[in-house]
């Protein structure tokens, strides 16, 4: 990404809005599926999302059931093209995933988009890693 660092860009509501509005980056039909605003941080889990970002379907939703085993997503599950992305919520409300583990972003949607950026089209493997 040109200009500021990805961390700063993803921390910036303006950058997020710009990315969401960049229709050329999204697959046809993606705009309709994209929420107009980031789910806001609140005390409970963030809202669900479902969009196509850079040609990849990313979905997020509050996790139901026990959801233990290897997942510690703070009660929230994210998928990239249907494959679960290991997600974690930090104490300050920020989020990281296993593919951008050292770079917190504000929301699960931002973490999913960062994962798509990092994957550059590669398939995500189900966790735990083989």
């Amino acid at each position: 990404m040109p200009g500021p660092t990805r961390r700063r860009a993803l921390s910036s509501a303006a950058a997020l809005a710009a990315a969401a509005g960049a229709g050329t980056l999204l697959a046809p039909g993606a705009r309709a599926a994209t929420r107009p605003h980031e789910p806001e941080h609140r005390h409970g889990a963030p809202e669900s999302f479902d969009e196509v970002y850079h040609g990849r379907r990313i979905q997020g939703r509050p996790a139901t059931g026990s959801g233990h085993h290897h997942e510690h997503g703070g009660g929230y599950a994210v998928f990239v093209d249907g494959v679960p992305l290991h997600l974690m919520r930090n104490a300050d409300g920020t989020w990281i995933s296993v593919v951008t583990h050292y770079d917190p972003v504000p929301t699960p949607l931002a973490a999913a988009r960062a994962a798509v950026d990092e994957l550059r089209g590669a398939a995500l493997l189900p966790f735990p890693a083989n």
Partner: protein
Amino acid sequence: MTVRKNQAALTADEKRRFTGAVLELKRSGRYDAFVRTHNAFIMADTDTGARTGHRSPSFLPWHRRFLLDFERALQSVDPSVALPYWDWSTDRTVRAALWAPDFLGGTGRASDGRVMDGPFAAAAGEWPVSVRVDGRTFLRRSLGAGVRELPTRAEVESVLSIRTYDMPPYNSASDGFRNHLEGWRGVNLHNRVHVWVGGQMATGVSPNDPVFWLHHAFVDKLWAEWRRRHPDAGYVPTGGTPDVVDLDETMKPWNDVRPADLLDHTAFYTFDDE
């Protein structure tokens, strides 16, 4: 006694022996066990639950022991090898000798991040990325892309000046030296370096890049420097803390070593400047 040297001071022969031992661990399958262990801890350590390897006071002793295991594995291949450290506050550009083809190789190409030179380039055929979170089997880097600047020496000094080792709630929200060094709070040292390197180093399977060990050897050295500066400040907490490794509690996955056993690095190795 093992002496850990600044990577910038290594001779050509020392570089060749280090990379040769790393490649042999890879060939034998022993290397990937380290990657697997690290990823298991990074996925399991949480701010609100049990935490051992990361985002907790035991971040530093856990990695000290993890590096000792790796260094001993290297020495079982070549007894002359010690882990070098990368002082990223000094050797802070892509032109550092660290990234030359006779050592770790350079950054990845623009199209897919693939490292194209050095002993760990996929084309050399000796470095398959097997423990991974996505389909790509080649080592990747994007030096300086995820974040522009490595930490400066002044930023390192500001963190070394923090007198308290760690503070409640003993996680990524903590104030104190450990969390500032780890980077979840403040100027961000350790985390930022992972992001600066990019590729696998920015993921849970970061030990897939051999620079992982050189980065953590310097983080470990900064802990030693902090102890020298603050001889009256010790590891905390010292007892009775749920989900957190207290001073005299054993650490997973070894279960036979405590932070208290790892505070004094000179029992295991020394650094080239001491």
